[in-house]
């Protein structure tokens, strides 16, 4: 085959590829793109909720066996049946939305998920569980997205990225500000909670290789690094979004790897938000004007 023939084939192949990409871009509506982005949030929330899978049957069984009559909680928010509904409904609807792409289903699912997660933050059986709190914030972003299906993609993507980073920054800010107290700065709290006897690879290694005094000193250093990193990450919203997304993602992964694998239930939905911030469409049509 001559050089000219080879060049012709390559040119034809390139043209056909460009045509396919062009057709694909033309087929995708703005609503399709926003829906795809929304599914990221949805999958993040679902992974967070699934990571707690062992909690649900145990909680339901125990709460049914032992009712706590506490006037702080409204009667409905002490009921194990309400708890089961608040947990079951968003999971069921979210799974449905992964397979069925109907605008109204998305709207109903997003509203129901946000309401149920708010309810879980308030119910006696799940009160103040950070998993439901981070999922609630992620679901708020999701709700905003499904209500914006009609708006142009060029508007939605940068705003979604900004809101995602704002939420991640807020979570870090909450963690950091709560630690601005002497017992955290000295390392006492984290020493007691993690270093003394928490069974986790990182702390097991430290206990094996350090004497008591070194372990206590390391707890101070660890605690201060946590405070400083969380404080810095509270300002992610000031950074370029992609960089902020990567820093947020790496920091969240670091928290899991160096403190507690159970925190993945808190983190998965935040990973999804960082993913949205990092996302950069390859196709020129999908790329919003910065």
């Amino acid at each position, binding site marked *: 085959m001559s050089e000219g023939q080879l060049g012709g084939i390559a040119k034809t192949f390139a043209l056909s590829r460009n045509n396919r990409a062009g057709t694909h871009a033309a087929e995708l509506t703005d609503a399709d793109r926003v829906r795809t982005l929304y599914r990221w949030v949805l999958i993040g929330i679902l992974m967070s909720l699934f990571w707690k899978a062992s909690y649900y049957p145990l909680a339901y069984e125990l709460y049914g066996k032992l009712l706590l009559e506490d006037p702080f909680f409204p009667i409905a928010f002490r009921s194990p049946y309400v708890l089961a509904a608040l947990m079951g409904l968003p999971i069921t609807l979210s799974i449905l939305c992964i397979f069925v792409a109907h605008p109204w289903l998305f709207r109903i699912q997003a509203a129901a998920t946000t309401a149920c997660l708010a309810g879980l933050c308030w119910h006696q059986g799940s009160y103040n569980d950070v998993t439901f709190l981070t999922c609630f914030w992620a679901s708020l972003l999701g709700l905003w997205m499904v209500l914006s299906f009609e708006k142009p993609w060029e508007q939605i993507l940068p705003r979604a990225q900004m809101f995602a980073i704002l939420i991640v920054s807020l979570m870090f800010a909450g963690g950091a500000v*709560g630690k601005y107290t002497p017992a955290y700065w000295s390392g006492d709290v*984290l020493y007691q909670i993690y270093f003394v006897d928490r069974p986790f690879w990182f702390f097991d290694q430290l206990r094996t290789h350090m004497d008591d005094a070194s372990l206590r000193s390391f707890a101070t250093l660890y605690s201060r690094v946590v405070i400083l990193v969380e404080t810095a990450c509270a300002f992610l919203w000031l950074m370029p979004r992609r960089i902020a997304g990567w820093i947020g993602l790496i920091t969240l992964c670091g928290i899991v790897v160096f403190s507690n694998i159970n925190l993945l239930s808190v983190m998965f939905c935040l990973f999804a938000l960082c993913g949205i911030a990092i996302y950069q469409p390859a196709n020129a049509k999908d790329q919003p004007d910065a």
Partner: protein
Amino acid sequence: MYNLENTYWYSEHPLSDAQLASASAEFFVRQISRDEETENRTGWVELDHIDEYSQDNSSRRVYLSMLNHFPTRTMTFVHSRAFLANEPRGHFYYRSRYRGVELNSCYQLMPLSENQLQVIRKEPQ
């Protein structure tokens, strides 16, 4: 992502400030020195030097721990409910500290029936 310095005590019987402080001092000294002999890392503290409890061994035990979450979840959340299923009465004391502010609270649990506990908020003694 944890917040505040939260500590809680659980005791079958009411505890005074002095008893809370005594249990606290004993527990944290043991924890920080990681006493290998007693291996007392589970949070249970024996208050054998408190005279008024010396007659009854079971009432001298106080469970004490620091928390990495909202304090009253020790009553409401799943693993704590499992604990309450075995000890369906008692007093929970909470102390949250943030910079110069300290909040103390106390709750008493009273069985209402076989599967019902009443939560009564009390003023710390």
